[in-house]
């Protein structure tokens, strides 16, 4: 009888010990949208963090594409099942900022950790984009990118173009594209990913013209689009004209056109610097250059705006969880982690120290393509046209623009008509979204 009792006490004691041990580890859930190689980086990083300490455990969960991850996060929040950390793409930034009660600013969280939060350690252009107008940093920039130019060196050679000089301006790009097409070096001269992000949002910033009122939405949610101004009309009419004979080929709304470039169908291609991995993988003989600009615009090239994604933290979690998130973000900000992330993935480093570190290591001399997006983003202090683009419903407005662009490229309307309609429909959608 007593024997039995001791056994029970021991068993109970073990149970208590094991359960209190598992209570000590705070789990932090992280929903992300990184497939393939970038997803492996996520796995490796969280594993490294989890092994580096014993208090917190970050659990990453893959939630599909960028828009899918955002929608999953929002649906989970509505069902009161929100994850601790959610990765949200650039276009979703305004959506998250519009939901003040749902999120916890990253600046507040990082101040809760053991180390004090110092904003000046991070790249200013990127931090500004993820901050409120008053300067409070709201989300943690995990992967940032910028659009650059890729070209096929073999096709350039065949067309009689200099394979070591990428075209710098849009007129030079069209010239080269026409030469590629007429010489028969390739079926098409030029293609592009993301017409909204590259040819509209970054086009405006890079040429220092207005995309929308209120500093493109950075200064306030009430925005009127300005994308039917003369320079935009000229640029899109050029694209529409080149599309008629197939010198420019449209590939899709996001990065579907990449296949047209890697398969050798098109000679010149614009895409995110984060798209480099697939191009390297294809084994093609490629070169890279800056995003082209308009020579007639006097401040061009100005600076590009950040793309990619950032990490948002939901409100209503325990202090213990926020401390864990702070520890994880501080881990991600470490110079050696950032340098590695930048060099492995092709995304931009988030801290200045990581950039300097990579520079010193001689990495850019061997891989000049990796420095282009950083120089583009940091070359000049941003103007009111180039701090970024923000709307509470940017994904929706991008879709409206895409629809009008497609109808224009199909020859159903001119650039002026397409952009006028895009502005009219976009403004109406923005008004509805902000409740006016």
């Amino acid at each position: 009888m007593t024997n039995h009792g001791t056994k029970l006490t021991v068993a109970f004691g073990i149970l208590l010990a094991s359960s209190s041990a598992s209570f000590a580890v705070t789990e932090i859930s992280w929903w992300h949208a990184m497939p393939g190689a970038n997803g492996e980086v996520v796995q490796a990083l969280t594993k490294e963090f989890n092994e580096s300490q014993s208090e917190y455990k970050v659990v990453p969960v893959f939630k599909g594409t960028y828009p899918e991850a955002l929608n999953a996060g929002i649906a989970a929040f509505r069902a009161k099942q929100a994850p601790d950390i959610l990765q949200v793409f650039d276009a979703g930034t305004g959506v998250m900022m519009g939901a003040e009660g749902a999120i916890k600013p990253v600046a507040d969280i990082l101040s809760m950790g053991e180390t004090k939060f110092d904003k000046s350690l991070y790249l200013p252009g990127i931090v500004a984009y993820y901050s409120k107008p008053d300067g409070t940093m709201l989300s943690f920039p995990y992967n940032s990118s910028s659009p650059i130019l890729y070209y096929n060196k073999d096709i350039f050679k065949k067309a009689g173009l200099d394979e070591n000089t990428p075209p710098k301006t849009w007129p030079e790009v069209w010239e080269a594209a026409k030469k590629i097409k007429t010489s028969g070096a390739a079926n098409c001269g030029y293609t592009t990913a993301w017409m909204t992000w590259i040819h509209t949002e970054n086009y405006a910033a890079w040429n220092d013209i207005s995309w929308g009122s209120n500093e493109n939405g950075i200064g306030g949610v009430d925005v009127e689009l300005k994308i039917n101004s003369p320079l935009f009309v000229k640029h899109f009419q050029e694209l529409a004209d080149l599309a008629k004979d197939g010198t420019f080929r449209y590939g899709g709304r996001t990065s579907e056109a990449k296949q047209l470039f890697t398969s050798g169908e098109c000679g010149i291609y614009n895409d995110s610097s984060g798209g480099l991995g697939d191009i390297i993988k294809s084994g093609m003989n490629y070169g890279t250059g800056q995003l082209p600009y308009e020579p007639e615009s006097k401040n061009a090239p100005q600076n590009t705006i950040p793309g990619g994604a950032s990490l948002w933290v939901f409100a209503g979690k325990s202090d213990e969880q926020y401390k864990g998130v702070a520890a994880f973000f501080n881990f991600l900000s470490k110079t050696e982690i950032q340098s590695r992330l930048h060099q492995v993935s092709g995304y931009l480093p988030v801290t200045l120290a990581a950039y300097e570190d990579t520079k010193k290591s001689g990495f850019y001399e061997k891989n000049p393509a990796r420095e282009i997006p950083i120089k583009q983003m940091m070359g000049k202090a941003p103007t009111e046209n180039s701090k970024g683009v923000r709307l509470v419903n940017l994904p929706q407005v991008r879709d409206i623009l895409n629809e009008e662009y497609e109808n224009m490229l199909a020859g159903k309307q001119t650039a002026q008509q397409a952009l006028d309609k895009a502005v009219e429909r976009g403004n109406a959608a923005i008004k509805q979204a902000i409740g006016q």
Partner: protein
Amino acid sequence: MASSTRVTFPNKFLPYLLLAPQLAITAVFFYWPASQAIQQSVLREDPFGLSTQFVGLANFKRVLNDPNYLNSLQVTVIFSIATALIAMAFALLLAVMADKVIRGKGVYRTLLIWPYAVAPAIAGMLWLFLFNPSMGTLAYLLRSTGYNWDPLLNSDQAMVLVVAAASWKQISYNFLFFVAGLQSIPKSLIEAAAIDGAGETKRFWTIIFPLLAPTTFFLLVVNTVYAFFDTFGIIHAVTGGGPGKATETLVYKVYNDGFVNLILGDSAAQSVILMVIVIAMTAVQFRYVERKVHYG
């Protein structure tokens, strides 16, 4: 009289118990979401549900005044008629042909039924792999003949592509029912007609086709509902509603406004309208069209 033939259960609760699973499923998968949609359709809410405001019928008013909504209604009508007609015509042709095959009948039938087992999204991907202008094998062949195949920009070609994919998937289902329908037609009728000198075409149009009417009618209802609701996966995979809004059907618009654009009120109002359309369509079909169907 009638009461004497009716089956009566000795236990009062047993019939309810037996009905319970079906009722539960209907309640959970129809009444619950439908009532939520109706509730959401009179509210204005931000994506996160932080602020909710009752707006009455404002969402319906906006949706019905939206030219894009009327456009997607038109797209849906064209898409559904084309898909139902093509899927049924091909299935009938194949069923009549397969009925004549003497050897290996089972093999033919099995092969023709296969595509039905393919999920809509996968069917969409298959067609995309063949006809995507950037990577499609058949698209490449088409383009190399000089034909400007570009469903990414040409809206008619995009529509042809989604109709083809949607009807290809539905042919199997229709085939199955037509084969069964053909088997239930008495051979003696056809033989009698043949003896009277009716040719094959005449026999088909005067005997087989009218006697298949119940099957055809049933399939018409099923195919229309299929084209309306079950083709989301195909459209999502093949065109994403584009180019422009050329292949944005009503269901796709509900998804797009609700899940991509996060305008929940408008999206819910559209699903309520859609529910009304479907109820009306089914009622009309059964009330008026059914009267003309010859059930033999």
